[in-house]
């Protein structure tokens, strides 16, 4: 065999690969253009359909035309009637508190035809701009808001998305529910729902859907869409919507009363009933029911709703797939008040350094920053000239904590079974220092599982004081005496424990090192133990830890404490993983959950927080704030307890 491979061949090989790369790029661009063309075609088709609908309506035969006209007039009259009714009712009920206890809503004295007799009707205030963009200087319509995500959403299909990014893309922009939280007061306001009746016993809810409400393809939002979304989509076991079933399972069934009236029936009277029903996205049945379960489960970008924006170029055959930018364009058919921006663009860069560089280079208007970046950038004048550096606590902030195993680990009680030891541990930790050094001075120290500043949180409870002396005294009282530099109990057992945190966590190891030093001061041996996130669930389920750190996040202004704090959640590997059982807490949780009166319930939660605080099953650490860097190119950027209201924002000239 001849030895033939020489330099010439090598150069040829290199040239061939260069040609290959150029060819590949050419094909790639061609593909992308083709997709662009398709999406443009799809948009045109949609607009054409709408136009044809309008034309058909106009050119219908004489009789049909008259009938249609009669219908339209009747509809208009009934809408007018209901508006007058609303005005009368709100005038009558001005200043009074609703039966549901929801501020911002008013009760009907006159009963509309759709309502159940004998029950009050609530006409919630429609959703509003807290800061009206049109009233601002330099207001203008149009422009693109370009947000950078730090994680890639694998799909943006409602009820099937698995992460916070999916929700950020479609919540309120593309998909809408019957109601929505007010950005500022966090009360429920009406969105697709025009009015509702909530059973004083909390077992049913009847909602009248806005007559004008339309999906982005122009079809009307009906009660059947609500029923279908709940029964045939979320609770259809063929669809991968499990994540949402566990919160929506307070609803027993949904009944269609008439085209625009729907009724929810609940399994038991719990305070979360109203919000779960009212905040469920309503999907267009006519669109989603054309797909098989496999098509939907495997879809990445089948996204349609009734919101002010729609997915650009929604095309079944060539859907949005990661890592392409997600682009939402203004829904020109929107039934409500249209927000100012033309488009929203979302792009993922999953590296914080690259994110920051990208936004500094002008590729993006908003990103989530780390605490360290915030500290650096909020002092960087060059940066703050072009960007707002915002940090604020809101209803989604959640809380971080150290959880103490209050019962047995592998059949042996941990030292933390004694409440005095748990209190001593909290006294040992200088929370101000943790806040200053590990959270860069950001966030609020919390004293309970409810957001600081929220109505559920009791303002009377202050953090336990940092005092080594108090800790020592409590430990001695609990029978831990220092011998040979180590605390020992009367049986001679050394006081040693493991502190478990997740690998990849930034604060976890720092807190671990601090905890170890503090424990050494009083003679406790603390061993930090990192574990993979994948085995966190197993560790919690088997209660195989002494002390563990985690952060709970929240989706609602008011959380249901049952899952974390009731003793029934200890059994069968429930989420009360500290195995903390307190009969008084159980009683308060049961009382609070059944109480449908907002103010009454808040009193109960305050008492519950005190009971938890007195027992310290968790050492509560921080409510870490949201951190956002937002470009000065945007106007009317305001931070709210709900987070941000992107619909208020406009592009400055």
């Amino acid at each position: 065999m001849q030895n033939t491979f020489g330099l010439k061949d090598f150069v040829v090989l290199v040239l061939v690969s260069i040609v290959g790369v150029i060819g590949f790029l050419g094909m790639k661009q061609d593909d992308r253009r083709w997709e662009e063309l398709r999406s443009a075609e799809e948009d045109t088709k949609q607009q054409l359909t709408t136009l044809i609908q309008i034309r058909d309506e106009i050119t219908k035969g004489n009789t049909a035309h008259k009938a249609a006209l009669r219908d339209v007039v009747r509809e208009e009259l009934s809408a007018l009637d209901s508006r007058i009714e609303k005005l009368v009712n709100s005038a009558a009920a001005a200043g009074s508190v609703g039966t549901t206890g929801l501020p911002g809503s008013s009760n009907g004295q006159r009963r509309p035809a759709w309502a159940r007799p004998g029950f009050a009707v609530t006409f919630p205030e429609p959703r509003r701009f807290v800061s009206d963009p049109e009233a601002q200087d330099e207001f203008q319509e149009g422009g693109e808001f370009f947000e950078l995500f730090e994680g890639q959403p694998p799909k943006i299909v409602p009820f099937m998305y698995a992460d916070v990014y999916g929700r950020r893309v479609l919540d309120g922009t593309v998909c809408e529910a019957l109601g929505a939280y007010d950005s500022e007061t966090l009360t429920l306001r009406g969105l697709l729902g025009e009015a509702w009746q909530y059973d004083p016993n909390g077992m049913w809810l009847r909602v009248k859907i806005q007559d004008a409400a339309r999906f982005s393809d122009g079809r009307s939002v009906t009660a059947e869409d609500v029923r279908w979304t709940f029964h045939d989509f979320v609770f259809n076991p063929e669809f991968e919507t499990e994540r949402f079933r566990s919160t929506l399972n307070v609803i027993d069934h949904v009944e269609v009363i008439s085209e625009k009236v729907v009724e929810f029936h609940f399994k038991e009277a719990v305070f979360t009933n109203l919000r779960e029903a009212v905040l469920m996205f309503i999907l267009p049945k006519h669109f989603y029911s054309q797909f098989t379960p496999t098509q939907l489960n495997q879809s990445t970008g089948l996204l349609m709703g009734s919101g002010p924006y729609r997915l650009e170029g929604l095309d079944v055959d060539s859907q949005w797939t990661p890592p392409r930018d997600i682009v939402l364009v203004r829904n020109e058919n929107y039934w409500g008040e249209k927000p100012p921006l033309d488009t929203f663009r979302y792009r993922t860069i999953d590296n914080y350094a690259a994110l920051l560089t990208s936004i500094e280079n002008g590729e993006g208007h908003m990103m989530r920053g780390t605490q360290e970046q915030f500290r650096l950038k909020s002092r960087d004048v060059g940066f703050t000239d072009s960007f707002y550096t915002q940090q604020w606590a809101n209803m989604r902030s959640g809380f971080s904590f150290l959880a103490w195993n209050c019962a047995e680990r592998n059949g042996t009680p941990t030292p933390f079974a004694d409440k005095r030891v748990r209190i001593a541990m909290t006294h040992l930790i200088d929370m101000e220092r943790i806040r200053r050094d590990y959270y860069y001075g950001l966030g609020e120290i919390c004293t309970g599982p409810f957001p600081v500043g929220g109505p559920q949180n009791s303002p009377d409870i202050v953090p336990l004081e940092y005092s080594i002396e108090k800790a020592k005294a409590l430990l001695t009282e609990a029978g831990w005496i220092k011998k040979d530099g180590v605390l020992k109990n009367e049986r001679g057992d050394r006081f040693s424990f493991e502190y478990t945190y997740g690998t990849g966590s930034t604060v976890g190891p720092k807190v671990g090192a601090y905890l170890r030093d503090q424990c050494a001061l009083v003679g406790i041996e603390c061993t930090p133990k990192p574990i993979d996130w994948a085995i966190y669930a197993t560790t919690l389920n088997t209660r195989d830890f002494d002390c563990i750190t985690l952060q709970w996040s929240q989706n609602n202004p008011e959380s249901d404490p049952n899952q974390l704090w009731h003793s029934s959640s200890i059994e069968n590997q429930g989420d009360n993983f500290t195995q903390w059982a307190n009969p008084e807490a159980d009683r308060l949780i049961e009382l609070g959950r059944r109480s449908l009166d907002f103010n009454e319930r808040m009193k109960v939660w305050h008492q519950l927080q005190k009971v938890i605080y007195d027992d310290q099953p968790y050492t509560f650490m921080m409510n870490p704030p949201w951190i956002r860097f937002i470009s000065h190119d945007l106007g009317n950027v305001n931070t709210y307890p709900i987070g941000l209201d992107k619909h208020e924002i406009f592009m400055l000239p």
Partner: protein
Amino acid sequence: MAAYLIRRLLLMIPTLIGITFLVFMLIALSPGGIGAAQRFAGGSGQSGVDARAQQAYLEDRYGLDDPAVVQYVRWLGRISPLKFGTRDQRDPAGTIIRSPKPLKPIAMLGELWGTEDDLTAPGEVEPETLSDDSAVNNATYRKASGAYLLARLDYIAAQTNLRLALSTWGTAQGIRGVLNNKSKLNESKLRGLHIVEDGPVPQAVQDKGLDAASTYRDAQEAVIQAYERAITSYNTAQVQRDHLANVYAAKPYPQVGWSIIPGVLSLGPPDFGTSSSRSQPVLALIKTALPVTVLLNLIAIPIIYLIAIPSGILAATRAGTWFDVASGAMYVALWSIPVVWAGTLMIGFVANERSGLGWFYVAGLNSPEADGFAYLPSWPNGDFHRGFMLDTLLHLCLPVSCLVYAGFAVLSKQTRAAMLDNFSADYVRTAKAKGVADRVVVMRHVFRNSLLPVITIFAAVFPAMLAGSVVVEKIFTIPGMGKLVLDAINLRDRELLLANTLMIAGVNLLALLLADILYALADPRVTYD
């Protein structure tokens, strides 16, 4: 040569099975499971999610509740082009439809409570009569499969409920660990016990007092109810399964593949399954990620070779000179720089417009507006438009630099060493003595004979080209194979990980084979006959 090739190719099959078996077992035996990592991603748990119910659904959907070996054999059966048993069918949406899964028996029925006779036995399969209209058949199948799925999930919920009731009942009489750390029933803990309705409370429980006895009775009652519910739901599900099996046997959809021995053996396309973390066919995910990685490497590898080999040759011809020392020192220095650090520095200093040079882009492969670009750079109306190709290349500059800089050292040192070995060989002296020009000696004699180590390195580099670089892809947000594999590991996405392993292992083995063939081509002394 042909016999050698066939032997090597056949040997690949057991090797691949061995590799995938190892990886499969590693994932199956590692703690945590599908969904667990997603629930606690980043240390922030979502409260209000009933993780257990979700887990039970997922386990049933992906068949994770079977023993690991059974799961592996099933996976092997799916990816093998040789299929045993009846052929699968394919619905109009392209989904593979398999015969309905059988129901699992109720835990410890007959041993703790009741008898196995309480359960309806699976019926004989009698194909139903279907219509000629495929749309009607589709509807019939969908209806039957939906009904079975509902009934089956109800039965799974009943089983979960039974396990929990048994755990509570065990705790009530002082037996711990009835559920293991994966929430599975530890049957050995309950072996030898039997529930008698309204029977006496065990002495050990009675000794603990009245409260304990009452708790025990409540727990026992709950177990009996759970058994009754499980039996009812099992029987309902069995009826639905029989119905579905009958519809399936009537072949409502066209069959997949080609029959070899009807009903026993057939040939069919391999099915790599669906990714559990992204709910998408694994092949579709690889199809999107692979071209990106190949593109990156198609640019990076020639650059490495173009710079490292000539400088290796130069270093060898000028051994001991300043060029040899400087290039060697520089390459080793570059080789020692961690990619994470270099990448972050590049982003900060080369890409950042405000505090650095701002020459390149930091993330992705294209600018958002690139779709509207012309292909080549152009100057319409006198303004410069960079065009799609230049835009992509500008995006690729930093990631390619990161991939490239560490690669020079090994290759140039290898070339240099091989060249120096050959320089001292007799044939070089002879050539020089004959008066052959230096350039010709170096390029035609020495370099050609120094190619063997370069080929070896290429065999190692080629599979890495498909596996992707985890670090570079992560830093520059490039959706390639490295990122796909990393996500699959973090999220315990078994199907995705196995498909990737199979592909990378297969390419590795092929590359080794290719290297052996290239040896024979480059060096006439090497033969395989």
